[in-house]
């Protein structure tokens, strides 16, 4: 689903087209992945959102290839006759040789063609194909690894499809085949082995071994170059998968990953440096009204506030208008997702806010699904009590209004002392008494199944943040995905994110990281790390990410404690901002949407395809790489007006990155209107950057890049 954003604040000057002089001629593109029309994990999102742009570029010559899963096909795919005569012959031929291959339109944006292969139907060939694989490269696949066996079938079937297609073409065809992840990788190896006229691209979204090693609490990034890969993979019983993945990476004409951090990982774990990084994008929908996202933020925020009123009934001793909502969301991987250092930083933030006598209250939401026995009574009661107070107030208001009306009817000003009678006071007093509460507001909204061993709850116990009155940081752990039908917090994820002030994603292992990207598109600032693909990407593209509400935590070159201090200082800085500053910051954040739009990011995929074509068919295609800066893309300039608060607070906050220090004097310290700020950023070249940036080629430069490498 595309995320909405407003039209008027887009259109940055830097994002012009890469006007390529690249004639695709008669080339066809097959994009092959296990998650085509088959949602298993995050790759589905990548492929599904990217399809529209690719379909626009390749038109009738673009085919996605995936597994046939009946339940998915019934809901997402319209089966039709193949439109392309060559492909029709190919599919007919395969179907008459004991395969089941389907053709259809995938009913998503761009409605691309899909070729779906029934893998189970060809299971009778598994033994033969496994023998062939063994002959080919000495890789055996254990019988008990169902996924890997599916990968073998899928690989042989896709190679068969491509080979058959090439054979059915009258003229020697130019085929580009883009394979995603190890599950599809075998098809690539076979294409190369059979010397098919196919330009191959292999994209890993994360390496198998990286995922396993990080999940095992290994000091991953500091030892990247030292792992004995074969041993690590073998010991973890994934040796065959790892071999398939590495073989695909080795054989591909062009190898890509989704981020620079994964590129480093791949270089060490797959022993091949990616030829190009192809970041993941989103489909950004544009609003017609200006700053619509700000209104949405206000609406959603008030709904979260309602929930808070109920949750903290009897303890509402803080000002809800000075209350900031932070959240972390994602799969429940306690340390991979950085929940550990987030909790620690919250404890430190609590201390800082208390000693500074801050009037800000921070409420941190943890949205991470765990095993539960549904909502607990105390949380539900909170919402019921709130509802009751609301009803009481409403009843009294009705009666008050009636008396007022009657009094006015007879031409008298009402006697205020008689407006509320004794009965009204009684019901109001009773309602107030009902809000008495002996216990603290609960941390967890659900009854956990593993309460005693739950890592978040245990950390909360250790750091002692129990939502007591004196704490300036409160914690709410919602161990379930959000749903608009929930009796507790009836909002879906998108609404919830819009209502929050800051997303916190201090992940240790995050090959891309759609969560902060989604925040950005909705205009919500976020904290990510330089170990996440998103963080790397932003760091590379924006001169001063912090000013744009993209806080990037250094977890790569610092120890845990230092990172934790840095996170604390980010949070503390954020708490010190005024409401106006936050609004300006949100505007800036939202303006980065274009960066994350496939319309911009798709170009990396385009480049990868051109590169592959030129490698596979050197006689027909020539790939001229862009000048070195172009692959690193466009860098957002520093905004004209920097929110003053971070700059001011810097001296008082204990830790902050050095990069931000050197330029404070040159910064504008004025509190410009958000609107004005937008106008400024439209002409980035006229901005008075004196210290860091060397604005070059102001008008002629193809990218309008401001080179930020000092």
């Amino acid at each position: 689903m595309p995320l909405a954003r407003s039209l008027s604040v887009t259109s940055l000057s830097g994002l012009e087209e890469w006007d390529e002089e690249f004639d695709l001629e008669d080339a066809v593109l097959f994009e092959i992945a296990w998650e085509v029309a088959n949602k298993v994990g995050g790759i589905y999102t990548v492929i599904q959102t990217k399809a529209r742009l690719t379909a626009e570029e390749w038109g009738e010559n673009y085919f996605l290839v995936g597994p046939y899963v009946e339940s998915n096909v019934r809901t997402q795919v319209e089966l039709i006759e193949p439109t392309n005569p060559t492909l029709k012959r190919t599919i007919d031929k395969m179907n008459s040789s004991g395969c089941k291959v389907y053709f259809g339109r995938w009913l998503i944006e761009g409605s691309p063609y899909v070729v779906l292969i029934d893998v189970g139907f060809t299971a009778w060939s598994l033994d033969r194909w496994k023998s062939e694989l063994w002959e080919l490269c000495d890789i055996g696949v254990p019988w008990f690894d169902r996924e890997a066996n599916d990968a073998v079938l899928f690989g042989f079937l896709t190679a068969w499809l491509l080979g058959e297609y090439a054979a059915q073409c009258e003229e020697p065809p130019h085929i580009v085949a883009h394979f995603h992840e190890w599950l599809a990788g075998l098809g690539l190896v076979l294409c190369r082995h059979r010397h098919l006229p196919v330009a191959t691209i292999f994209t890993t979204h994360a390496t198998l071994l990286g995922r396993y090693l990080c999940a095992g609490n290994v000091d991953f990034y500091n030892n990247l170059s030292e792992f004995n890969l074969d041993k690590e993979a073998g010991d973890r019983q994934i040796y065959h998968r790892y071999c398939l993945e590495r073989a695909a990476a080795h054989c591909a004409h062009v190898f890509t990953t989704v981020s620079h951090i994964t590129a480093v990982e791949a270089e060490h774990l797959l022993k091949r440096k990616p030829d190009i990084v192809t970041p993941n994008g989103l489909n950004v929908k544009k609003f017609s009204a200006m700053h619509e996202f700000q209104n949405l933020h206000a609406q959603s925020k008030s709904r979260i506030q309602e929930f808070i009123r109920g949750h903290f009934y009897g303890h509402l001793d803080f000002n809800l208008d000075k209350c900031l909502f932070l959240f972390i969301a994602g799969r429940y991987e306690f340390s991979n997702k950085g929940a550990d250092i987030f909790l620690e930083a919250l404890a430190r933030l609590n201390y800082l806010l208390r000693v500074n006598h801050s009037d800000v209250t921070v409420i941190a939401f943890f949205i991470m699904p765990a095993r539960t026995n549904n909502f607990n009574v105390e949380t539900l009661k909170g919402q019921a009590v709130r509802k009751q107070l609301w009803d009481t107030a409403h009843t009294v208001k009705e009666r008050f209004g009636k008396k007022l009306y009657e009094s006015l009817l007879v031409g008298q000003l009402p006697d205020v002392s008689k407006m509320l009678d004794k009965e009204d006071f009684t019901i109001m007093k009773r309602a107030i008494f009902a809000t008495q509460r002996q216990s603290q507001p609960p941390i967890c909204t659900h009854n956990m199944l593993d309460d005693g061993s739950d890592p978040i709850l245990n950390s909360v116990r250790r750091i002692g943040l129990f939502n007591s009155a004196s704490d300036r940081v409160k914690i709410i752990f919602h161990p379930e995905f959000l749903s608009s039908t929930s009796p507790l917090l009836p909002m879906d994820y998108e609404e919830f994110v819009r209502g929050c002030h800051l997303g916190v994603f201090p992940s240790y292992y995050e090959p891309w990281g759609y969560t902060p990207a989604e925040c950005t598109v909705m205009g919500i600032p976020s904290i990510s790390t330089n170990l996440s693909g998103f963080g790397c990407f932003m760091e590379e593209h924006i001169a001063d990410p912090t000013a744009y509400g993209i806080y990037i935590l250094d977890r790569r070159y610092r120890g845990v404690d230092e990172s934790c201090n840095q996170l604390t200082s980010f949070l503390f800085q954020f708490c010190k901002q005024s409401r106006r500053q936050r609004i300006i910051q949100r505007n800036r954040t939202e303006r980065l949407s274009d960066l994350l739009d496939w319309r911009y990011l798709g170009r990396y995929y385009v480049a990868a395809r051109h590169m592959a074509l030129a490698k596979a068919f050197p006689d027909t295609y020539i790939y001229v790489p862009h000048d070195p800066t172009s692959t690193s893309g466009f860098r957002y300039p520093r905004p004209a007006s920097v929110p003053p608060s971070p700059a001011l607070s810097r001296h008082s906050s204990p830790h902050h990155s050095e990069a931000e220090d050197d330029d404070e004097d040159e910064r504008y310290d004025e509190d410009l209107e958000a609107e004005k700020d937008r106008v400024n950023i439209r002409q980035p070249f006229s901005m008075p950057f004196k210290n860091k940036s060397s604005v070059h080629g102001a008008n002629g430069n193809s990218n309008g890049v401001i080179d930020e490498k000092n």
Partner: protein
Amino acid sequence: MSAEAFVTLATSDSYCMGAIVVARSLRRHGTTRSIVVMVTPNVSQRARLGLEGLFDKVIVVDVMDSEDQLRLSMLRRPELGITFTKLHCWTLTQYSKCVFLDADTLVLCNVDELFDRDELSAAPDPGWPDCFNSGVFVFRPCLHTHARLLEHALQHGSFDGGDQGLLNTFFSSWSEADISKHLPFIYNLTTSSTYTYLPAFKQFGHNAKIVHFLGVMKPWSSQGRTESSQSQNMGRFLTLWWNEYRAQKNCQPPASEGEPPHKFEKTQQVQREGAKSLFSKKLEISDLLLTQSSVQMEEMHSMTEPKDKEEEVKVQEGSKGEEEHHGEMHTTQLTSSEGDFHPEEVKGPSQFLPLSHTPVNSPVDEDMSPSRGSKDIQDSPLITEGLDNSQTKTRVSEADRVREELQRRQLWEAGQADYMGRDAFKNIKKMLDCFLE
């Protein structure tokens, strides 16, 4: 009386292990009928040899190399390949009546009374009781029926892609026409029923006559993993299966005696009186076992285990020049079987069979790290030696190489690639580079 036979089918080397158990369990319970196995051409020569001593007849079925009609069918519907092979049983017209048993079944008592039934008798499938399960069925070989089956397959295919769908549409009146053709469920007790209807299993399970290991997990592939993932009841049947399989290894003659390696069935049982009585006792009390706790099971094993080993050692003492290895082997096995019996049990049998999992003496063995796979290999010299003796040691290195390849692949497929040794990725990479220009 015209001849009657039990028929089974092995489509790969691992299914041969199952076929062996089918044959052995039938013999143990004193069947008076012949036992026949059909094998596909991809089953290796060695595995086929292993079947020859046990079965009255080993028939190689190659659908691609048969009469025109069948070959044509195969070409038109390659996905039904295995099914066509199974249908081949209808051509065994030297027998008047047959009972087909899938290779993943285990016979728990004499079932010769099945021959009183007529074609086509079968037990209901637990998933859809109006269909019969084609793991156990009674049929009359007849070329005419066979031809009609093929025609039916070509016209209608199979609704489940296998033989069961085909046979159920062909014998479509089974569910209502004649109750005498409904075999009781105890003749084809699928192991999944233990969790789909546990109370019924508790009530009737001890009457079971034939157990059918339906599903992806076959007894021969259990690899010691089963204990955690499977139900207790399933686990007990698995143990019975392995007992039957193990029983065979004790019957294998000492290689040095120069007998044909697999003609042991009748003669060896006498020799191995001790072992036999232990195992038959176990099988006799199998009803009891079903109601016993698994703890007792394990106790029994720890009792029988050491005896088995002594037996093994004695057997091997016949072969010369192996004493040094003996000591080693003996201790490894003893230490390895401490605690739970599974790893040993799983690996034990395969070493004594010229079958898919037979480890072969290979140069890597020495530098194997003490990981999961190593036990296998440390033990292997003995067995190989035994085989070599029996096969007059005239193997050329080429054949050795092929065997070694086969064994390496089998280790891979058991998840035990030698990733620190010769299966290291750098060797794979070399092979890849061969075709990358």
